[in-house]
């Protein structure tokens, strides 16, 4: 169920942007090594796609984002739940977690390469670390905001720990988890691209560094464009999932 209005708005904004781009690169006469035209950019992408390498790069980036997002979300929710159920642990871990959370994970990227090598693992590690903390914080906030009387219901119905989690705690904390996921989603993209810049021979980030190193501005622009589109797609996908799962929580709906 995609509403027409936001699609139109996105479309209009996109059209304005492309027109401005075209104007700057054509009539305005920016040199193509600084600003390739939209046509040249698309052509570069098509050429790259026709060799089959573009799909590989895209798939690689998508995979590290999707896996990192999924693992980070599951781990974030899991630790949040443990901290929520074991207050003692939460007192002990609060300090260390704040330190870890505020440490710039991006700066650890080279370290992840040293630890995990040039393949998928290093990218996953970075994306994971970027997703994990926002989801942890969001889930914890969501869990701590649960109406305690919902737990009275659980006690009255004699729900076991697993059923209580699945039937009450998880759905009740979902709005908080989604706050974390949306922050994490943006971070995941940044993390994946950045990790590919640093090392490896695949992914959109690699394509950018490769294009820049070989002075292929149109291809560089193409990769940037794809990355931006990927960001939009990620945003839309999370938004749709949220709307589907959290319709009950939509305060604006009449």
């Amino acid at each position, binding site marked *: 169920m995609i509403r027409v209005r936001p699609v139109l708005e996105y479309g209009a904004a996109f059209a304005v942007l492309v027109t401005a781009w075209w104007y700057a690169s054509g009539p305005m006469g920016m040199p193509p090594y600084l600003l390739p035209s939209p046509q040249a950019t698309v052509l570069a992408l098509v050429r790259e796609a026709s060799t089959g390498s573009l799909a590989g790069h895209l798939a690689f980036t998508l995979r590290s984002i999707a896996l990192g997002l999924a693992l980070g979300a599951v781990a974030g929710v899991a630790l949040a739940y443990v901290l929520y159920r074991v207050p003692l642990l939460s007192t002990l871990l609060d300090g260390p977690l704040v330190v870890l959370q505020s440490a710039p994970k991006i700066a650890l990227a080279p370290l992840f390469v040293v630890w995990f090598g040039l393949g998928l693992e290093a990218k996953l590690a970075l994306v994971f670390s970027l997703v994990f903390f926002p989801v942890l914080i969001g889930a914890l906030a969501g869990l701590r905001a649960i*109406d305690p*009387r*919902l737990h*009275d*219901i659980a*006690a*009255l*119905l*004699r*729900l076991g720990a697993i*059923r209580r989690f699945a*039937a*009450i705690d998880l*759905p*009740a904390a*979902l709005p908080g988890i989604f706050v974390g996921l949306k922050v994490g989603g943006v971070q995941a993209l940044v993390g994946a691209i950045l990790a590919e810049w640093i090392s490896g021979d695949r992914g959109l980030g690699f394509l950018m560094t490769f294009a820049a190193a070989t002075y292929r501005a149109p291809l560089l622009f193409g990769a940037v464009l794809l990355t931006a589109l990927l960001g939009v797609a990620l945003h839309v996908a999370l938004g749709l999932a949220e709307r589907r799962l959290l*319709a*009950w*929580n939509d305060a604006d709906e009449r």
Partner: protein
Amino acid sequence: MPRAPLDRRGADGDVIEIDGISKVFQLRGKSVPALEPLTHAVPEGRFVAVVGPSGCGKSTLLRLIAGLETPTSGTIRLGAGPVKRPVGFVFQDAVLLPWKSVEANIRFPLDTAGVERARADAVVRELVALVGLRGFEQTLPRQLSGGMRQRAAIARALADDPPILLMDEPFSAVDLLTRETLNDELLRIWQRTGKTVMLVTHSVEEAAYLADEVMVMSARPGRLERTYAIGLPRPRSEETKLDRAYHELVAALRRDLRGGEAAR
């Protein structure tokens, strides 16, 4: 209905036997007594109302009976026979699961009890009709009025057919007119189902109108002050509220509450 003597210890046919139960809360290292030792028994099918000022421990008493709090001393026995879940509980505001529809909320206790689908469907249909929510099965709680949410909560409390229904100020969050309607519906449901009901309320009128027996509690320390047997004829209706006996009872209850320390 023949009336058993009040303020007695348990006997056959009792479904709630409270024996010397008390509760002391620990708040920041301080002991706060909420309920003095209390002994009481409720026979099957009786409608009991509990009135008292704020802080008299009436909600604590209900939560103790429901097993939501652990007593500091004393014991509670529930149910005439072995029942899987002896009590249904209705909170002050409905406390429905906000992500579930009315129907799914009512079905929730049946799902957790593993009741088979076809039977659960039939029970839910029946309960939806009983509480007058037909046509709202797929509605989400936040789209309902407070009164309708409370109807759904009552249906949920009745879903797996517990012999005892505990209600903690169930109608204090709805407007007066709705409250009177819900009172009559509650009486109708009670008469249909034959549940033993224990209802905590601030309203002495509500207590006198609904109950067979009113427990009056006093505050600080919370304890049972006295009990009244209500002999008003049933079924009760607007007529009841014109009855002289009803008004005398309401006046007596109010006196007790105002006096705080009513003479025994």
